[in-house]
C-alpha cells in the first residue's frame, strides 16, 4: 500500500489522472466496476475528504472523468501493480501536473483503447511506456501533427489560388470570344447560370434591360437613403419617394413585354438570381410575404396603420391563393390533355389528327400562363400601391429602402453561393 494513502483502501485508476495540486492519491480500481463505483461514492462522501475541501471541486472533476473512462472500457481489468508504481514515482517527484494533465490523460485513455482494449496487459503496458515519456512524447506528436496540418493547408491554398488564376485567364479569353461572336450577330445569353432562354433576342434584351433597371433603381435608392438619413422634410422626401416607387413599378411593364416573347423565362425567374428564384411565386415576390417582412422596418406604426397593414396582408394572401389555385388547375388540365388516350407516336391519319388536336389544346392552355403572370404582377403592383396609401411619406421611404435591401441581400447571397469553392 502506498504510504501516502489514508486509512481508506487504495482504489487504482488506469489513467492516474489525479496528479494535480492535491498530494494525496486517489488510486482507483477499474476491476469489478459496480463495487468500485459504490466504493468511490463512499469514498467521496467520507469524512476524509473534508480535509481536502479546498480541492474537492477539482477532485470531483477528476472523479467524473474517471467515471467516463470507466464507462468506456469495462474490459480493462485491474493491473494495478504497474500503475501504482507509476503513481508512486510521480507523487514522490511531486511533479506538478497541470490542468492539462486531465486532458492529456483522456487522450492517453483513447490511445490505450485503440491499441487493444480487450487485452489489459497490452493496454496497460503501452500506456506505461507512453506515460514514461509523458509529456514530451505527446507534445512532440501534437506539434508534428500541427505542422503537417499547416503544410497541407498551405498546399491546398496554393492549389486553389492556382485554380483561380487559371479560371481568370480562361474567363478573359471567353469574354473576348463572346464579344467577337456578338459582333458577328450570334445571340449569346449572359444570364450567367447556364439557363437557355429560347425566346432568343427577346430574353437577351430583357436581361439587359433588367440590369439597367437594377442600376437605375440603385441610384434612386441611394438618393432616397441620403435624404432619409439627413432627415429631410416630408415635402422633399415625397418627390423622391414617388420617383423611386414609380421606377420600381417599371419592372412590371418590362416583364409584361418580355413575357410575350418568352413567358417561361419570366415566370420561372430565369432572369433573377438563384436565391431570389427560390422564393419566387408566379414570376415574382409574394406581396403578403413582403408586407410581413416590412412591418418591423416601418415602426412606429399607429394602431390604425398596423390593423390596415395586417388586413392588406390578408387580402393579398387571399388573391395569391386564388391565383395559385388557378395555376394548379392549369397544370392539372395540361397534364390531363397530354395524358389522354391519343398515342404519342401517331399512327395513321386519325392518330395524327388526335395528336395534333391534343397539342393544339395544350398550346391553348399554355397561352394562359402569360395571363397568370400578368395578374400576379398586377396584384404585386396594387398591393404596394395600397401600402403606400396607408403609410406616411417617411414610412414609405423606409419601406422602399427595406425592400431594396432585402433583394440586394438575396442577390449578394446568390453571388457568394455561386462563387463558393467546390472540391
Amino acid at each position, binding site marked *: 500500500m502506498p504510504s501516502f494513502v489514508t486509512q481508506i483502501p487504495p482504489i487504482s485508476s488506469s489513467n492516474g489522472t489525479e496528479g494535480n495540486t492535491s498530494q494525496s492519491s486517489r488510486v482507483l480500481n477499474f476491476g469489478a466496476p459496480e463495487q468500485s463505483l459504490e466504493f468511490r461514492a463512499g469514498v467521496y462522501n467520507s469524512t476524509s475528504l473534508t480535509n481536502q475541501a479546498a480541492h474537492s471541486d477539482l477532485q470531483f472533476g477528476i472523479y467524473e472523468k474517471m467515471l467516463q473512462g470507466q464507462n468506456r472500457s469495462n474490459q480493462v481489468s485491474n493491473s494495478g501493480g504497474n500503475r501504482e508504481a507509476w503513481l508512486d514515482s510521480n507523487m514522490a517527484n511531486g511533479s506538478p501536473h497541470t490542468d492539462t494533465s486531465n486532458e492529456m490523460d483522456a487522450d492517453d485513455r483513447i490511445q490505450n483503447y485503440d491499441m487493444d482494449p480487450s487485452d489489459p496487459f497490452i493496454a496497460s503496458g503501452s500506456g506505461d511506456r507512453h506515460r514514461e515519456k509523458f509529456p514530451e512524447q505527446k507534445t512532440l506528436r501534437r506539434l508534428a501533427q500541427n505542422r503537417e496540418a499547416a503544410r497541407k493547408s498551405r498546399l491546398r491554398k496554393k492549389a486553389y489560388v492556382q485554380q483561380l488564376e487559371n479560371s481568370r485567364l480562361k474567363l478573359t479569353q471567353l469574354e473576348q470570344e463572346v464579344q467577337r461572336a456578338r459582333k458577328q450577330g450570334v445571340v449569346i445569353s449572359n444570364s450567367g447560370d447556364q439557363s437557355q432562354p429560347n425566346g432568343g433576342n427577346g430574353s437577351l434584351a430583357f436581361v439587359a434591360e433588367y440590369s439597367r433597371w437594377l442600376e437605375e433603381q440603385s441610384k434612386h435608392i441611394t438618393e432616397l437613403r441620403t435624404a432619409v438619413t439627413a432627415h429631410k422634410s416630408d415635402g422633399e422626401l415625397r418627390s423622391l419617394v414617388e420617383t423611386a416607387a414609380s421606377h420600381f413599378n417599371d419592372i412590371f411593364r418590362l416583364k409584361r413585354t418580355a413575357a410575350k416573347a418568352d413567358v417561361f423565362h419570366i415566370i420561372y425567374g430565369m432572369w433573377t438570381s438563384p436565391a431570389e428564384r427560390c422564393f419566387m411565386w408566379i414570376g415574382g415576390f409574394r406581396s403578403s410575404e413582403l408586407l410581413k417582412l416590412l412591418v418591423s422596418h416601418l415602426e412606429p406604426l399607429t394602431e390604425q396603420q398596423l390593423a390596415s397593414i395586417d388586413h392588406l396582408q390578408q*387580402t393579398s394572401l387571399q*388573391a395569391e391563393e*386564388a391565383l395559385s*389555385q388557378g395555376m394548379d388547375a392549369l397544370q392539372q*388540365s395540361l397534364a390531363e390533355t397530354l395524358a389522354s388516350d391519343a398515342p404519342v407516336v401517331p399512327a395513321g391519319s386519325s392518330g395524327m389528327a388526335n395528336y395534333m388536336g391534343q397539342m393544339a389544346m395544350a398550346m391553348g*392552355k399554355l397561352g*394562359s400562363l402569360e395571363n*397568370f403572370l*400578368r*395578374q400576379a404582377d398586377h396584384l404585386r403592383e396594387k398591393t404596394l400601391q395600397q401600402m403606400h396609401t396607408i403609410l406616411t411619406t417617411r414610412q414609405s421611404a423606409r419601406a422602399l429602402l427595406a425592400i431594396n435591401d432585402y433583394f440586394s441581400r438575396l442577390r449578394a447571397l446568390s453571388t457568394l453561393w455561386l462563387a463558393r469553392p467546390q472540391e
Partner: protein
Amino acid sequence: MDRVKDLASKKAAVIFTKSSCCMCHSIKALFYELGASPEIHEVDHDADLEWALQRLGCNPALPAVFIGGKYVGSARDIISLHVDESLKQKLIDARAIWF
C-alpha cells in the same frame, strides 16, 4: 345582350366562365374565399353568349363578373377592387355577403 342582362340580374353575384379557362377558376376561388356564392354560367357551348359579352365591352370576355346586375370587370379589375377593399363593399351592398 338581353340574355346577358337577364342572367346577370338574377343573382347578386354572377360570373360568366369557360371550363377551359383557368383564370376563371381563380376568380371563382376568390369569390368563394370571400364567402360569396356566385352564380356561374359556363359559355363553353354558347358562342352567342360569349359574343354578346364581347359586344357589351367585356374585354377580355371571360371571366365576366356582374355584381348587383352591373358589369364589374374581368380578372384584372377584380384584383384591383379586391386589394383596395371595394370588392368586398360591392358584395355587401348587393347582399351577396354580409360581412
